[in-house]
């Protein structure tokens, strides 16, 4: 198939992968448009990494079909690998090589024409030029992440698969990183990124939420929140932990989460929730309805999903 013949960078359906009796990825279907930044969220061990590995041909799915950049994920892994930049969760470049040597190695593997210039450009672009003779092993988390990103981009991939790229990276470096991702997306690169951070989720064009192998929600931030149909109230006042215990036992209350000095109480039926809460909240406590946030929705989705370990 010709990559240009489809408007989706990723278009897969019913992708399933089981390890032993456990299905880690369960009939997941996903479409990601070209130039889109797509966020992939879910608790630890939910199958995000496995799904990324299937997309770039590192794992073969047990069932399901689809294409990635116009190539069949089951039969054309080689073609896909050439066009995808995959950044692993754990730093996976050579710690006993310098930044420049690592980039040069990757450039050789991908047979980049004008290799030296490509390496120089990549060093400059990510601000690594001064550090190019440093061993990768001595770099801090933020710089390692920059190196990994630079290495993933050196062969000018059409699709970037980033597996928790900002874990353990400070806020400043994280912001720079997202700047870079948005710039790349504007140039037409498609990005599929997994994360645990809500602020990062909100930076994505679209999202999917996956828990224990099942895709529970997808769409833009607004769509995901709307689909969840969750009503949320904010309670402030004294002695909230005791109140929280009390509230959890009430009918119609699906989740009670502490947010700083307030409690967020969510449920599916706004009317009923208000009726149940009102008698319990007297001054000096206050009760007011608020917009459900992405985090409320995700915690709701997560507690609703059953862990298939059990």
């Amino acid at each position: 198939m010709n990559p240009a013949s489809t408007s989706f960078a990723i278009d897969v359906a019913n992708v399933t992968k089981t390890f032993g009796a456990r299905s880690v990825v369960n009939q997941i279907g996903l479409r990601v448009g070209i130039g889109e930044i797509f966020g992939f969220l879910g608790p630890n061990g939910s199958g995000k990494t496995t799904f990324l590995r299937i997309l770039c041909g590192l794992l073969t799915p047990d069932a399901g079909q689809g294409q990635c950049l116009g190539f069949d994920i089951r039969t054309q892994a080689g073609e896909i690998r050439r066009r995808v930049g995959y950044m692993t969760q754990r730093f996976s470049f050579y710690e006993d090589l310098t930044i420049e040597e690592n980039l040069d190695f990757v450039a050789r593997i991908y047979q980049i024409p004008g290799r030296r210039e490509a390496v120089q450009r990549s060093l400059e672009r990510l601000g690594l030029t001064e550090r190019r003779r440093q061993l990768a092993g001595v770099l801090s988390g933020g710089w390692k992440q920059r190196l990994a990103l630079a290495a993933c981009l050196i062969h000018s991939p059409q699709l970037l698969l980033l597996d928790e790229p900002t874990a353990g990276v400070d806020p400043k470096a994280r912001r720079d990183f997202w700047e870079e991702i948005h710039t790349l997306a504007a140039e037409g690169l498609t990005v599929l990124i997994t994360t645990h951070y809500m602020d990062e989720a909100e930076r994505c064009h679209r999202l999917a939420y996956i828990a224990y192998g099942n895709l529970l929600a997808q769409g833009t931030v607004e769509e995901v929140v709307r689909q969840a149909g969750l009503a949320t109230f904010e309670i402030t006042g004294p002695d909230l932990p005791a109140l929280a215990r009390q509230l959890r036992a009430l009918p119609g209350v699906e989740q009670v989460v502490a947010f700083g000095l307030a409690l967020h109480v969510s449920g599916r039926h706004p009317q009923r929730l208000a009726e149940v809460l009102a008698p319990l909240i007297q001054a000096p406590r206050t009760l007011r309805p608020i917009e459900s946030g992405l985090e409320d929705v995700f915690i709701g989705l997560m507690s609703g999903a059953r862990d298939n370990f059990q």
Partner: protein
Amino acid sequence: MTLLGFNFARWWAIVAKEFIQMRRDRLTFGMMIGIPCVQLILFGYAINSDPKHLPTAVLSADHSVFSRSLVQALGHSAYFDVVAQAATETEVQRMLAHGEVMFVIHIPEDFERKLLRGERPAVLMEADATDPAATSNALGTLQQIIDRLIDRDLTGPVTTMRGRPGPVELRIHRHYNPEGITQYNIVPGLLGVVLTMTMVIITAVAITRERERGTMENLLSTPARPAEVMLGKIVPYIIVGYLQTSAILLAARFLFQVPFHGSLMLLLAVMFVFIVANLSMGITFSTIARNQLQAMQMSFFFFLPSLLLSGFMFPFRGMPVWAQSIGSVFPLTHFLRIVRGILLKGNSLPDILPHLWPLTAFLVVALTLGIRRYRQTLD
């Protein structure tokens, strides 16, 4: 309970944890049990520093009763197995050079007649003395065998000749290493031993290290193909192998004065096959091992029988047949014969072919196995 700052609860916590980890790493545990067993069997049953039943050829120009009973007596002794009756001198030399036989006994014309006349006919025993340890005991018994034979067979009118010293003159020619210098045998052998050890270990950890450090996932996500990765990892160590070779050969020449009769080019060419065979074995191990420790253990598991069964430490012909068959699998066994052949016997390509093809076969099998076991996915 604490005694002089030593807390038994904490100590027990460490002991218990070590046992759990030992149980998790089955392969390591298996090796710890397996290696002593292998050592026990090899040392107990296979190793024999007094080799017997050594292949012997007879070149007899005398077809008398005496010469026949001499050959018979040789065969009856535990040390010599008469495997061939040679017809010509060239045939005999070829057999020795190829290592088909270790001894050739020459019985001269008119052996019987001269013996009966008391002219002390000379019996010539040629020995392949590359490994002095393998031949010395056999040669030591030779005189006895002849004496006993003469004692028994010289009856009747010739009894007078019994008991007199040496009715037969025994001449012994130790070929290839006339002075029986052990170094001549050990130093070329060491070349093979050193290479086996370093080459297998070095590559056994090569891929395992990538997996342990997490760089494998990255390498797999690139378009690099298994053969490219394998051969890419092998080539640098080929060069290392040749550096080791040069060092040992120089030492052999200048420190130990080991003779070098054959062609250096031929030796270097054979080295290539040998080095790559060992590297391939290492690569194959590294596709199986889950961590670097396991890779090291597998290398050791390969190295130990190589060392013991190849004929480096103990004479190959001294081992029972089953041990010889196992020994014949290892590249070191064949390499030892080749390197001793080239250095000490001046062997040329046709002479070493019988040992070169098993080496090549090993290489092909090990490399194929390694490439097939190397998976391009993480499944």
